[in-house]
């Protein structure tokens, strides 16, 4: 098992490299920050921009070389640099926002905010989806089943930005109605709050509820449908019938024989919800005013901040790969027919 995990982790490196090359090329052809900046300066001053300024910009952002060279220097930092680039040396590259904005600091501060949202939403969606999928299957064609099915398809069909606004407005109205401050709908925590880990967590909870609810609903719908189908299949299987024929009580059969086996296909699929949540976080954070990675990436894309976009893509790539790794490991834990060799 340990060998498998190590090998699987090592295999993530070429996958990640491939992904960064693809991302880098796409981001690079999509914008040209130097030209944008020249245009901006021209607009504000009304005069042609001197060549020396252009050269300075190009060399500061490494746009004085070709795309492959730029990729190489972004990845390794080997070559002629201003000592601010080179991923493997822990330097994320210059931001076009100026030297005051350090991409590394910015990302590490925001990463935990986004991770909190994404992890909470993913875990909640998997847990609730399994529960409701099982209930749906056990009570197939009942009112409960139809209600859950309807809700599932509703959430699957609703775009997340619409759902987000709806829930935000709903939470605000609910707060007014109850006269409480139970649901916080703006920001990720009380501004300037300081305390130990637990206090910060307690402080962040009211801020977390509504956004993670919005973020979880999409993947909840998909996973619960999946769980329902796989549970129904197992419930009609011969071994569930045999278990009942052995005299095992119905509830125990459902838990021990049906659910246990029906979890296998879901476990391989559910951790991938992590990648869906990473993407959904961009919209959710914007709606709820979180200063997380998603919003950062959106701003970076809008301003054509190549290295900042790359940093975001790299981190979400790692998160997705970790999700895949978890699903691989879960598969092996749940299904004895899988062997790691």
């Amino acid at each position, binding site marked *: 098992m340990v060998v498998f995990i190590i090998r699987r982790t090592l295999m993530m490196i070429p996958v990640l490299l491939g992904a960064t090359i693809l991302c880098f090329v796409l981001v690079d052809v999509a914008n040209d920050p130097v030209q944008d900046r020249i245009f901006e300066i021209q607009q504000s001053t009304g005069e042609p921009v001197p060549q020396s300024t252009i050269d300075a910009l190009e060399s500061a952002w490494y746009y004085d070389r070709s795309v492959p060279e730029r990729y190489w220097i972004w990845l390794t930092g080997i070559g002629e640099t201003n000592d601010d680039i080179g991923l493997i040396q822990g330097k994320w590259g210059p931001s076009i926002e100026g030297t005051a904005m350090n991409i590394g600091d910015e990302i590490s501060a925001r990463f935990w905010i986004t991770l909190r949202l994404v992890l909470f939403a993913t875990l909640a969606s998997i847990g609730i989806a399994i529960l409701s999928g099982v209930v749906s299957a056990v009570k197939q064609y009942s009112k409960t089943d139809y209600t859950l099915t309807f809700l599932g398809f509703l959430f699957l069909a609703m775009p997340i930005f619409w759902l987000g606004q709806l829930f935000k407005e709903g939470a605000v109205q609910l707060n007014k109605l109850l006269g409480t401050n139970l649901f916080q709908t703006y920001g990720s925590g009380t501004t300037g709050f300081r305390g130990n880990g637990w206090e910060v967590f307690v402080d962040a909870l009211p801020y977390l509820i509504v956004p993670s609810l919005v973020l979880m609903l999409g993947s909840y719908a998909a996973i619960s449908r999946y769980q329902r189908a796989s549970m129904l299949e197992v419930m009609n299987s011969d071994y569930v*019938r*045999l278990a009942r024929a*052995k005299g095992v009580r119905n509830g125990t059969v459902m838990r021990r024989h049906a659910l246990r086996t029906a979890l296998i296909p879901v476990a391989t699929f559910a951790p991938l919800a992590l990648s869906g949540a990473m993407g959904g976080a961009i919209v959710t954070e914007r709606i709820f005013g979180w200063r997380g990675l998603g919003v950062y990436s959106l701003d970076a894309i809008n301003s054509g901040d190549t290295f900042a976009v790359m940093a975001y893509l790299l981190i979400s790539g790692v998160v997705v790969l970790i999700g895949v790794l978890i699903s691989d490991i879960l598969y092996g834990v749940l299904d004895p027919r899988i062997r790691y060799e």
Partner: protein
Amino acid sequence: MSNISVTTGNGASRAVGARGDVVLKVDDLNVAFPSEDGLVHAVRGVSYELRRGQSLGIVGESGSGKSVTSMAIMGLLPKSAQITGSAKLEGEELLGLGDAELSRIRGKKISMIFQDPLTSLNPVYTVGFQLSEAIRTHYRDVNKAEARKRCIDLLDSVGIPNPQQRVDAYPHELSGGMRQRVVIAIAMANNPDVIIADEPTTALDVTVQAQVLEALEKAREEVNAALILITHDLGVIAGHTDEVLVMYAGRPVEEGSVDEIFYEPRMPYTLGLIGSLPRMDEDRGHRLTPVHGTPPSMLNMPPGCPFRPRCPMHQDICAEVEPELLPINGTGHVAACHFSDQLVDKAPDDVFAAVATDLAVEAEVEAAEAEAAAIAEEEDK
């Protein structure tokens, strides 16, 4: 071989009644399933008595209600099934019991072996876990070590080599025959009064079939249980049962001892089944006599004998009156046919025509043969 009838601490060595007592009495069992097109009457009045130590064979085509009858007795049918009649196990009514009461009886007094050993065991648990689950569900005071020991004994007694190692194997590590033995071991784990085997050898190849049936026979003898063997294999019936119940379209159409059914069948369907079976004592060129057609739809059964459309002997009365099971000669042999007395000393060939199932194919074969003969003739010239 360990003595398995006196194990499992205090519980499993239950009082065993005398041979010949009635253990299972099924009376006018009816099962219907609602469907979009109406009620499907899968079982229409099945009655039989099973005595301790007796082995009852139930034969019939697919869809004749063999399996549904047993599943109804075990309470394993879906909730939508409408069941009437009675099934009494040692005087206790089984039909209509709730999950709690049924769970107490299932696996302890009456157990079941299913058709497909490849899917009968849960792939994520070891054989030992699934076997000891059968024991510990009913005897909670049995600890894990005792249960494991008993599992090994059980696996040994159904003929699994190296039971000490196999007890920790997962189902996918065993062959089909081995898995069916495990299922048999599960069925005999608590010394049940009745074992229902629903086509236990259908999914296995012929060499393994014999071994599995042997294991089943041995299991039955060790726990002195009554056996219901459901199959469509007449060879298996001949070798392993005392009494035979022939079912057609959800009803028993003939019942009698093995000898009566095989040598003095009094219902054309039984005769047809026997005629469809290749025999070692016939010539190689002997043609089989198939029963043409298919069983009737169980939706909106027409009045009269359900076998009438396929019966070469049918007359006007068969379309109007469905025959009752009538005694043949007072020995307990009963048959449901208006003309059972006409079947005395008849061979299958006398009643059913020996033709290929598909007349079009037959014609094609004849044409090809004629062509070959013509070519041969031409070459001779």
